[in-house]
């Protein structure tokens, strides 16, 4: 009961996670289905990622097979990582977290399992259509129309389950994770409809504008709020310490709700789109610093006095490095929207460096930390190997840093060359070869991280380590 009072009074999550709380009430069938399948896609799509990176070095590698050409594997990589791995893992974590924050069981596990099944059908459908080249021609909106409709249905199913769980909650106060989760459900619905349905009704610049509103907000109003929902839950939870400030988390939330949606046109700076719209997008992009710094300050202040845990708590390592990457990527974003910086980095390899730091460095790190925390609890056994988990962290971190840093430096240099028209274009391609080589090997390291992570989780799920401790106290440590 004590923990509930803390929750209701201070807007904190219960700090003493006891086995009783985690183990008996919740079935977690839906959470398991989402999380395990998402990790499967993480691994498979990781292989695709390596193929894509290899094609920059050896362009004719697998090049005579239409299905394996760059232009088909790249969307498979992007959609597979975003929707097959990251969003599905995030949804799985929500199926785990939300009932616990509400003090009730998930509204319906059956409905949840049906959602997981539908989600898997969508992902498999996406793999087939993208390899076949059935591509709608919009970035992030590649999937054919039927699958778009299925995504909407699945999202409504997910949202219903979440909102019904919140509606029947026992604790009156809603912890900030619930806010971000509900925001994600609502905004995603409209952002997705804009990008995948409304965009089909118009053409040209008008369509591009809707497309960029969607692309930008797929990151800003889907992956950001759901990623923050996860960070806000797991940072205090894994460090076993209360959140620094509920109020500050609200400031972050409402400024995010207001600011993000204005910025889509910054994807077309200097391009054929109205100047005034570009200026609005720039102003609001800079204002993004507010929600970002509010969240990051809150996370760091929460960790005050707990930094020693960085030494051997693997989920914390992922979470805190994720926060640092979040801070960096969200500093870069507003900076690129300044016209002078944009003139150099836009359309270069800097941009994939930036995008990967957001969805891999920040949001995937949060999701991985969440998986390491919840999977042992859902399957009621200890993690198969702590050492392997630690390996996965270092592989991800070193691979990730190698990837980001070389692409920024390389991309900046590339943009510099492009701005000097006396350098023939092909020379700027040849000059980037060393950058792409480092990128490929960084990718190999990250894939090692994925493999270690996936193996560890799978081994935990099937109980490969034998039935060690199922004792609550040990599990919750």
């Amino acid at each position, binding site marked *: 009961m004590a923990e509930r009072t803390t929750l209701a009074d201070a807007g904190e999550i219960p700090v003493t996670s006891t086995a009783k709380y985690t183990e008996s009430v919740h079935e977690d069938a839906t959470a398991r289905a989402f999380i395990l399948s998402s990790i499967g896609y993480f691994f498979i799509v990781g292989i695709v990622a390596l193929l894509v990176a290899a094609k920059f070095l050896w362009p*004719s590698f697998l090049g005579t097979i239409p299905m394996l*050409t760059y*232009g088909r594997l790249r969307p498979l990589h992007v959609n597979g990582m975003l929707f097959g791995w990251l969003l599905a893992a995030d949804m799985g974590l929500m199926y785990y977290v939300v009932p616990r924050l509400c003090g009730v069981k998930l509204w319906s596990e059956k409905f949840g399992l049906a959602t997981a099944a539908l989600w898997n059908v969508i992902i498999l459908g996406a793999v087939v259509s993208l390899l076949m080249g059935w591509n709608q021609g919009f970035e992030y909106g590649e999937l054919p129309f039927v699958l778009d409709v299925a995504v909407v249905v699945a999202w409504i199913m997910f949202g219903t389950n979440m909102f019904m769980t919140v509606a029947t909650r026992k604790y009156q106060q809603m912890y900030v994770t619930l806010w971000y989760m509900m925001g994600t459900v609502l905004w995603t619905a409209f952002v997705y409809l804009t990008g995948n349905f409304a965009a089909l009704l118009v053409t040209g610049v008008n369509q591009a504008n809707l497309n960029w509103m969607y692309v930008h907000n797929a990151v800003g109003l889907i992956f950001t709020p759901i990623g923050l929902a996860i960070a806000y839950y797991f940072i205090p939870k894994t460090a076993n310490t209360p959140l620094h400030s509920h109020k500050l988390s609200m400031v972050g939330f409402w400024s995010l709700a207001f600011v993000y949606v204005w910025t889509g046109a910054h994807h077309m700076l200097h391009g054929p789109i109205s100047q005034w719209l570009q200026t609005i997008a720039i102003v609001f992009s800079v204002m993004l610093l507010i929600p970002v710094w509010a969240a990051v300050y809150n996370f760091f202040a929460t960790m005050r006095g707990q930094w020693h845990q960085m030494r051997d708590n693997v989920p914390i390592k992922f979470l805190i490095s994720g926060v640092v990457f979040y801070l960096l990527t969200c500093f870069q974003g507003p900076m690129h929207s300044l016209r002078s910086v944009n003139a150099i980095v836009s359309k270069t390899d800097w941009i994939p460096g930036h995008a990967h730091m957001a969805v891999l460095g920040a949001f995937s790190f949060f999701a991985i930390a969440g998986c390491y925390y919840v999977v042992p609890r859902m399957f009621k056994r200890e993690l198969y190997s702590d050492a392997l988990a630690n390996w996965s962290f270092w592989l991800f971190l070193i691979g990730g840093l190698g990837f980001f840093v070389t692409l920024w430096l390389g991309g900046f240099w590339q943009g510099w060359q492009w701005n000097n028209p006396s350098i023939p274009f*092909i020379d700027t391609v*040849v000059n980037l070869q060393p950058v792409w080589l480092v990128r490929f090997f960084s990718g190999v390291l990250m894939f090692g991280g994925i493999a270690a992570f996936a193996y560890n989780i799978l081994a935990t799920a099937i109980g490969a380590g034998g039935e060690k401790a199922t004792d609550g106290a040990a599990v919750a440590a």
Partner: protein
Amino acid sequence: MLRKADNSAVAFVIGALVLFFIGGILTTVVPPLVDASWSKPFENSDPTKGPTGKLKPYTELELQGRAIYVREGCWYCHTQQTRTILADTKRSGWRGVDSPVSTPDEFVYDNPHMFGTKRTGPDLSRVGGKYDEQWHVTHFRNPADLVPGSIMPPFPWIAADPAESKALVAYLQTLGRAKDWRPDGDFEK
């Protein structure tokens, strides 16, 4: 009061949606209403106002070519916009003449739009008329044969299929040609 709203899921839903829709509507619905050039095809017959010309709808063949461009993901490596950046107008220029900057009215018939975000290869917004069909087909077969060091993937299945390569080339030749800007014509003359 604030505390109460803080605990209410209904107040939350209303707040989150209202804030979202302010920015959402002002940046998506309003701009095309304010800015006519987003939906009016380019047309100019007065040389003092810049390049002359007229944007024509795509033919059946060009649309087939466009579909191939979408299918093969050419747009992941090529942008189609000459931006308001000096180097862009030089790079897509021709024999010392800078290419005109892209304007919204040149893209009215584009669906899906192909502006692109990444330049692994050069911008194609003014490539129409730069090369002849023979060049393009040879290039599709193996780009590095024509441009050593190229990392554009080979597309032998397009080069080997006369219908496909004809359509794709027909589409590429339309790019940027609503504006009549090349000094003494192009390869065709």
